[in-house]
């Protein structure tokens, strides 16, 4: 029998969702300050309205949803998935008010793309967008990459272990430190350190190339934010191609790779156990996958004579593969070139890299190399079992921070999530084909949305059908949260309708 949620359950969900939107409203004060400092008064009004809407919602929820009931696992999951949708609706308000988005749906698309660190964009005339709105776009990536809930866990929620369901619900299976709030704070520490390093490196690169100091700083900050968080937004319409700078590209490769590492691995490396990177199943799987998929992509490009020369192959082939594999979506080519110039083999290499993704408990999306590594390891062990005597005992062991014996449950979970991702990719592909796009392009764009990558072959455009925009929004949302909390929300809605 399905139990209908009680009023107290609704109040718990409402209370925490209100706190989350309160936090989002406070974050909008950052672009508001930028707008005021740089005399962008029109843009400042957009953020006054956006922040006020968030704070009103937050206050109303906190005032009306008073409850003493504790947050349970299912509440936490629902709070997470609901808060991400609310963040999209509220985060889109200042974007829409700027008149750079054709409709509120387009603004919602970009807001979800930002929070989910995807990078697909429907913004129009990006090159004339205000500093404040650009700051907000990149901030959504920075918040979303760490996790909207991590922000709340760090600054707004006082209870430590009671917040665990919220932390887990945001697709973070591992606690880096025993305490979930300490884990959230460590994630912020790592993020701030790499953001500062990335910003400085990019600032000096562009400042030395003649860009004014203030602009070099903002471009450095924004690109570092989106590269570390494997997001993919840029302040100019040509993505990384705008900068025409090899050193700039190399720095973004470094940031993308750092952002794609598991936070547990970061912690281990920071603790001085540097050999872990050579033993960790995730790091090894990622390395092998990059080598194989770049090999595939490069073979297609070289065979077609697309980018002759090592430098060209590196700056176009390798860059796109790393951008895809880390789930960033930065591009050093124009979107139509994927469709026009790249061979099906090269396109397949990039599509697979997007589908697989990078580290679990990182800012990257996709299936994750840890799951691929676990499934592959199990497959190898099963083959080994068939060749050994029946009495032989084969233990499925992996090394991830420490030696772990793989249980049936873990393998089943990894396989189920992998299957869910494949289905998610297929849904977007079918909708794309339904609207008349060729299979290879529909698959490419769908995987890019579902795996939160942001590479585009040209389908994502303000003129694309509304149904496809909604499909990609759903894919970005479900893909970022890795399904469990999305299923929890859908289950709660079903229970509210059909339960007793």
């Amino acid at each position, binding site marked *: 029998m399905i139990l209908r949620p009680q009023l107290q359950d609704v109040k718990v969900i409402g209370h925490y969702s209100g706190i989350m939107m309160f936090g989002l409203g406070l974050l909008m004060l950052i672009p508001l300050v930028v707008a005021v400092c740089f005399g962008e008064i029109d843009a400042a*009004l957009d953020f*006054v309205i956006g922040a*006020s809407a968030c*704070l009103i919602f937050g206050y109303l929820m906190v005032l009306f949803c*008073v409850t003493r009931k504790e947050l349970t696992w299912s509440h936490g999951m629902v709070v997470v998935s609901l808060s991400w949708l609310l963040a999209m609706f509220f985060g889109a308000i200042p974007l829409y008010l700027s008149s750079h988005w054709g409709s509120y749906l387009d603004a919602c698309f970009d807001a979800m793309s930002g929070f989910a660190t995807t990078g697909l964009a429907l913004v129009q005339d990006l*090159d*004339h967008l205000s500093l404040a709105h650009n700051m907000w776009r990149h901030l959504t990536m920075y918040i979303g990459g760490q996790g909207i809930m991590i922000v709340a866990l760090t600054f707004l929620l006082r209870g430590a272990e009671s917040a665990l369901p919220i932390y887990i619900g945001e697709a973070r299976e591992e606690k880096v430190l025993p305490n979930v709030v300490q884990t959230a704070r460590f994630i912020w520490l790592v993020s701030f350190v790499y953001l500062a390093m990335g910003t400085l490196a990019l600032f000096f690169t562009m400042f030395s190339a003649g860009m004014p100091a203030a602009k070099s700083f903002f471009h450095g900050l924004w690109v570092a934010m989106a590269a570390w968080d494997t997001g993919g937004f840029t302040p100019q319409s040509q993505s990384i191609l705008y900068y025409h*700078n090899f050193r700039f590209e190399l720095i973004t490769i470094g940031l993308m790779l750092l952002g794609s590492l598991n936070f547990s691995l970061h912690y281990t490396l920071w603790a001085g156990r540097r050999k872990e990177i050579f033993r960790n199943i995730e790091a090894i799987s990622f390395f092998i996958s990059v080598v194989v998929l770049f090999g595939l992509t490069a073979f297609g490009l070289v065979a077609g004579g697309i980018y002759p020369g090592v430098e060209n192959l590196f700056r176009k082939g390798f860059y796109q593969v790393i951008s895809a594999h880390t789930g960033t979506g930065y591009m050093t080519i124009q979107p139509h070139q994927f469709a026009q110039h790249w061979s099906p083999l090269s396109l397949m290499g990039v599509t697979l890299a997007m589908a697989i993704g990078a580290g679990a408990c990182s800012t990257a999306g996709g299936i994750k190399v840890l799951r691929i590594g676990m499934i592959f390891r199990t497959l190898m062990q099963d083959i080994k079992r068939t060749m050994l005597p029946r009495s032989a005992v084969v233990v499925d062991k992996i090394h991830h921070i420490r030696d772990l014996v793989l249980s049936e449950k873990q393998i089943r979970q990894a396989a189920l999530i992998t299957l869910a991702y494949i289905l998610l990719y297929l849904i977007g592909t079918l909708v794309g084909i339904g609207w008349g796009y060729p299979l290879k392009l529909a698959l490419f764009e769908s995987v890019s949305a579902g795996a939160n990558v942001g590479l585009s072959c040209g389908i994502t455009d303000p003129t694309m059908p509304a149904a496809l925009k909604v499909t990609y929004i759903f894919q970005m949302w479900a893909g970022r949260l890795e399904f469990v909390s999305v299923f929890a929300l859908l289950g709660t809605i079903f229970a509210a309708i059909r339960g007793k």
Partner: protein
Amino acid sequence: MLRNIFIACLFLSAFCLSVQAATVSSVDLREDSPKYDGQTITFQGEVIGDIIVSGEFVWINVKDQTGAVGVFCPKELVEGIEYKGEYRFSGDIISVKGVFHERCPQHGGDTDIHAQKITLIEKGEQIEHPLNPQKIKASIILPSIVFVLAIIHLIVRKFRKP
């Protein structure tokens, strides 16, 4: 007869020259790029962003209605550019004559134009961002509601049983 052949040749060479330096849009460059690859073209659009220095040369990005292209040229050619498009300014509209590269071997495979001549078509200007009266109203009313709710919240918290 010879005169007629001479006139025909003259027309033909004029036609060839016009094709060689045809004014093309970013849509043409996107959809028919092999045709223009390695050819001298003329591209017209707004200068956006900044002038990026690369040794003795510079990069500028020029955008027409639907897309932007990187333009590589000696520093002297961009001396006349005053306005670069951003939030506050519409950039100078320029006409760039140069060799188009679909995948430039000199610049890591970038799509670019190696400019030979840049002509200023129209000066850019400051963009006015007039304040929308509806936005001003909302920016007064909504924060006022927040203020009232904040006070109510404080009062409720004070009188709520622990």
